[in-house]
């Protein structure tokens, strides 16, 4: 079965994020499809797929490898699973859930079923928001009256409706966080660190000042 088609067949309620065993089974059945053999450890399978698509827009493949080429989504998933504190984990999942709600509000379809163009549109909406809008998102995130803030347990899997404003604000926070972690994961990947940036593991000397163009071919040091 085509993975995208499979996902489209999953039904979602408005403003509700439910990814249960059925979805996982479907995703696993797509494992033989080229490139799709990743089973996230922290995120749900659907959230993992969405994360990859967001990262494709933020750090796309081009002349140099993109986020997907160096497994940045996988890195973020493992980082959230092993390194993040429980509070960060909770917030990250909540925000991932809110992103899906905001996506649906904006594009009238499930995020899992989104095409590249849809993700370009949603990333643009938030990361290219006006400074006033960004401030408003940040302010909204700082408030605590949202239903999602009152329940510290696994409510991303529960049926709590999220207002459009709250979903937008949390989705903005999610994209910003994914962007920061994505940049870090990309820059510290072996491929980028050794073959794209200036890799100089044993400099052997210190040259205190010289033109960027003469050193490392104009590239930043990876270490």
């Amino acid at each position, binding site marked *: 079965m085509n993975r995208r088609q499979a996902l489209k067949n999953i039904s979602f309620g408005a403003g509700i994020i439910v990814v249960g065993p059925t979805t996982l089974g479907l995703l696993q059945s797509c494992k033989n499809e080229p490139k799709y053999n990743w089973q996230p450890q922290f995120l749900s399978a659907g959230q993992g797929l969405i994360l990859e698509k967001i990262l494709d827009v933020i750090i796309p493949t081009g002349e140099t490898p993109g986020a997907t080429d160096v497994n940045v989504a996988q890195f973020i998933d493992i980082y959230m699973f092993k390194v993040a504190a429980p509070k960060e984990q909770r917030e990250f999942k909540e925000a991932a859930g809110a992103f899906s709600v905001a996506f649906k509000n904006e594009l009238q379809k499930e995020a899992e079923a989104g095409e590249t163009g849809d993700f370009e549109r949603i990333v643009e909406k938030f990361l290219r928001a006006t400074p006033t809008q960004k401030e408003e998102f940040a302010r909204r995130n700082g408030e605590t009256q949202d239903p999602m803030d009152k329940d510290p347990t696994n409510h991303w899997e529960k049926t709590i409706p999220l207002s459009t404003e709250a979903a937008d604000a949390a989705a903005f926070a999610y994209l910003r966080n994914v962007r920061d972690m994505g940049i870090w994961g990309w820059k510290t990947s072996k491929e980028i660190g050794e073959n794209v940036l200036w890799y100089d593991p044993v400099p052997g000397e210190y040259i205190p000042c010289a033109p*960027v163009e003469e050193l490392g071919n104009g590239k930043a040091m990876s270490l």
Partner: protein
Amino acid sequence: MNKIKNKQKFEAIVIGTGITGGWASKELSEGGLDTLVLERGRMVKHIEDYPTMNKDPWDFQNRGQASYEERQHQLKQARTGYTTGEASKHWFVDDLEHPYNEEKRFDWIRGYHVGGKSLMWTRMSFRWSEMDFEANKKDGYGVDWPIRYKDLVTWYEKVENYVGISGKNEELPQLPDSIFTPEIALNCVEQELKEGVEANYDDRKVINSRVANLTDPNGREGRGPCQYRNRCIRGCPYGAYFSSNSSTLPAAERTGMISLRPNSIVHEIIYDNDLKRATGVRVIDAETNEKLEFYADVIFCCAGTIPSASILMQSRSDRFPNGLGNDSGELGHNLMDHHFKVGASARADNHEKDYYKGRKPTGFFVPRFRNIDEKSTMKEFVRGYGMQGGASRSDWTRAIGEMNYGKELKEELLKPGDWKIGVNCFGECLPYHENKMMLDYNKLDNWGLPTVTFDCEYKENEMAMRKDARDQAVAMLKAAGFKDVSPYDEPCYPGNGIHEMGTARMGRDPKTSVLNKNNQIHNVPNVYVTDGACMASSASQNPSLTYMAITARAANHAVEQFKAEKFKQPIKQTI
């Protein structure tokens, strides 16, 4: 090890293998003494036992971050903010296994292994000046040092020749020059700070920092020059920075006169009331819990400021009911550290086209400029502070700051980021009797030994100094023309500087100090304490170079005394 197993009597015992234990081992063994070196932690062999020395970020499981699970074992060690990542966490103790208590917050950062903190230190190496040794006498805080700069000069020279300190002669009275190997150059932004500050101030200088990283192409025995990887904290495969593991312990081994026993927790020095001297140490094997005793004619306490004081406090006898050498009641008191985390940072915007090759392990230094003469005397505080800092091109700050993404972001990420410059001020802390450590016999550790409780805080003089330090850092960065100058003054707790010192201070009078001018315990002259515990004041410079010089001096004194059979004669006590 077999050799040790059946042998209990040595001529000397050294407790600890850190920067002072390494020096004591080397000097005593080179002086011909059959020496047992005891270390409470595990063995760490030079190069062989540096598991992360060649790892790139992508070689680590979590790109260098410790997992949440792992972090729960090092919550206190993590208070430094830079020590407990995947690259270096194995050098810092497990706080659950090695607990301590805080009446007031004290950040006790420890490395229990062969080499101690000499493996993880920042390598900053500065001599103290005459004014540092005179300070207590002049302003009346603490007790007068029983030694002066002249007593240490030849020992500084001996240590510097051996260690290899990179730096440049400046001829400053408040910061005497060492014997240097070539300095590590300032980069163009650091040079701009130097020129800007020196053009605007006649009372201060920006100099190349002075570090125990070899720049001498000839190296030293078993050690080569710095390769500019800036991975010192992991252990250096080139032996380019000085550590006990790369330098003093191998030198001691070469004499054939030392036996090194790791996993040996010394908890007591045995005092013989008839002989009126120490005769040995009591040890618990950290792995087997076996209780052992070793005997020697002379004992060097180099376990570290807190552990050394703790061992003396646990060494209770009829003659010394409050701890060995504690006639004065000063043992465990006068605890000091350097306060820091105050200064400023800024951006340099006219070096967009400039970069550097190599990652140098140090930056610049601003020697103390307050209270060094009449003109620089401050009303608000006594003593002074130095400034440490560096400039570099940041990683991806510029790209992060804006919210760009896609192709544009990727292009930005490949270029070096903005030039950033930071200044961190390190200030002297006065010796206050009430700043202290104690033993809690109600809370025992895994080996049944009492745990340490801290009651120590910075006071008005330190706070007044911080305010001035922050203001001066801002003014200097502005004077040099940098942009976005922003001050900072973060909470700083004693211990965090990892320069804890003063718990068994040297002094002229047995009634007010623990050690004499040769680092011998007053009235127990065959016990020497030469780590940070011995310090009567803290100055503002990083202390390791002075610890090394003091240790070399004391060890050579001990060798002379031993050879003159002074430790075999009945000891006459005075109090």
